[in-house]
């Protein structure tokens, strides 16, 4: 057993290297991954990086513009808000809320959706039709308005935002998992596993689930982007993260009141949201390209064509040079 494990590690390392090589070649995907890594670092080390506390007020230094506009100074690079709080520090700290809410919601909604999808696909019959009907019904709900009514009655907070977004978002995972399980179920290795007496749980978790890793990973990343936008929108509407906590959507909402005098208050948190979501979207589209066999084929064909063109050109040059 130990030998087997040692052997199987070598190709794994090779695969990782190949993956990184491919990532390097796809510039957009590479930039996306690099930006996300930077964002995670920023969120983790926010108190160390941020020049000021995000909640420290300075009533004499209110609405100071960024450093490149006239009364601005290096003390507040991106200026201050209506309470004299440092915009840069608030943007840095805001990444924590966005990334936490995104990660927790993806984890919760994903776990629930995948679990129900596995049950529906593997069990079939009544469980399947019940779960699918549930999903069909909930997909037709007006999600944002349901979220508004729940948040208004129960009271907005980070926890309720996470719960509401998970409640609204698990169905995609369920549908996708069920479809994938149905296509894998009839394969020889699953039947073999059933035949040798593996328990249903083992068959599902060890033999079926690993096949779903790459489509589920791509879906989770796309959903992550959607959740970051949804949290920002809810906080902007005033039913999400509440002050004194910091969130990009919340900061845009407060900046809205000073839009005519202080453009920087709405601008910078908005850029932070856009850059974060764009980075996640770039990674997701790269993931889709490398995990879809059809796309891989097209890419391979393109590479071969480029190679052939290069060869004929260099051949011509050789023929012409002497």
């Amino acid at each position, binding site marked *: 057993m130990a030998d087997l494990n040692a052997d199987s590690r070598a190709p794994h390392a090779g695969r990782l290297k190949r993956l990184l090589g491919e990532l390097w070649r796809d510039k957009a995907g590479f930039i996306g991954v690099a930006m996300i890594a930077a964002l995670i670092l920023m969120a983790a080390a926010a108190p160390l990086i941020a020049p000021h506390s995000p909640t420290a007020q300075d009533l004499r230094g209110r609405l100071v513009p960024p450093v490149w506009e006239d009364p601005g100074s290096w003390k507040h690079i991106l200026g201050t808000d209506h309470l004299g709080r440092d915009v840069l520090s608030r943007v840095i700290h805001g990444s924590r809320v966005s990334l936490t809410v995104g990660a927790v919601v993806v984890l919760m909604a994903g776990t629930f959706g995948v679990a129900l999808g596995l049950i529906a696909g593997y069990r079939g019959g009544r469980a399947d039709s019940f779960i699918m009907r549930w999903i*069909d019904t909930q997909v*037709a709900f*007006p999600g944002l*308005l349901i979220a508004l*009514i729940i948040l*208004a009655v129960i009271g907005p907070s980070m926890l309720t935002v996470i719960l509401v977004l998970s409640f609204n978002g698990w169905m995609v995972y369920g549908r996708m998992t069920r479809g994938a399980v149905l296509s894998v179920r009839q394969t020889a290795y699953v039947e073999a596993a059933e035949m040798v007496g593996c328990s249903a749980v083992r068959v599902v978790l060890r033999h079926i689930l690993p096949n779903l890793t790459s489509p589920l990973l791509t879906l989770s990343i796309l959903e992550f982007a959607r959740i970051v936008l949804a949290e*920002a*929108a809810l906080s902007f509407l005033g039913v999400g993260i509440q002050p004194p906590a910091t969130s990009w959507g919340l900061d845009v909402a407060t900046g809205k009141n000073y839009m005519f005098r202080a453009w920087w208050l709405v601008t910078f948190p908005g850029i932070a949201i856009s850059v974060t979501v764009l980075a996640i979207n770039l990674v997701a589209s790269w993931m889709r390209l490398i995990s879809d066999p059809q796309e891989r084929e097209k890419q391979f064909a393109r590479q071969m064509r480029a190679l052939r063109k290069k060869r004929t050109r260099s051949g011509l040059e050789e023929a012409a040079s002497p």
Partner: protein
Amino acid sequence: MVSRQADRPTGNQLIDSMGRYFLKRLWHGVVVILGVTVLVFVVTRLVGDPVKFMLPLEATAEQRAEFEKQLGLDRPIGVQFIDFLDGLTRLDFGDSLWQRRPAMQIVFEKLPLTLELAVLGIGLAFLLSIPLGIIAALRPGGASDRSTVFLSLLGLSVPQFWLGLLLIVVFAVQLGWLPTSGIDTPAHLIMPTITMALPALARLVMIVRSSMIDELNQQYVKTCFAKGLAFYRVVGVHALRNASLPVVTLCGWELIRAIAGYSVVVETVFAWPGLGLTAIQAIERDDLILLQAIVFTVAILVVLINILLDITYKVIDPRLKLT
């Protein structure tokens, strides 16, 4: 289901199967509305406390009891639920606490404004997505394709509320070309429509692009070119007609998204007095009754559009089996 019984269904059978399909969809719609009802009921009556939400903190115990009685919240939960369903079938949710008149009256006043903005926005997205998608699809991997794909990714990444605010800062505050908010003149429509259109446009362009790429690789396109048809006829008529089916359905979905989601954000940014802004105002004024009326109106609207959409799709694409 029906098409399996006979090789070619007669007209009567087709109508019959359409009828059954319609009934099935209608039933699904009823289930959705029931689902929303149960959810809203559980959230507002069991998890949260509507009286605490609607009355100020300093209200006395007598005031609370009085209010509970006025709303009928002192009765057994089962009776309340039946009463709620009864109100729903008559579209009567009671009087808005904020405006002191029937909530549905307010909803019917605001609904046309929301529909106007949603239809204009999605219409704009549809009209722009087709030429942009075709240009990108003509040379996949080329410069115009790459820039279109990147721009749609960017469009999907920019938060809608922020885009609206940026438009206001640039075109209303800095340049002074357009009014910031309100509904008085046609010029008031421009920025809300653009903001409404953007995410839909980004998604639709991607779909037009990928389905056009698929169509242009089909054999019949080669045949068309081979027999000497003009380029614009092959692309703009033959390929586009086949590629447009998924786009039409997706437009319907975008319309649903616009009415049930985007309208809240866009209307809040531009102070557009539709249902979305009214929902936010209802929350600010602790008016649960008005909020409920809005949620149910939108839910019913979404169900109706869904049914219409499914039926149109079946009619325009006869290859689909009715199930």
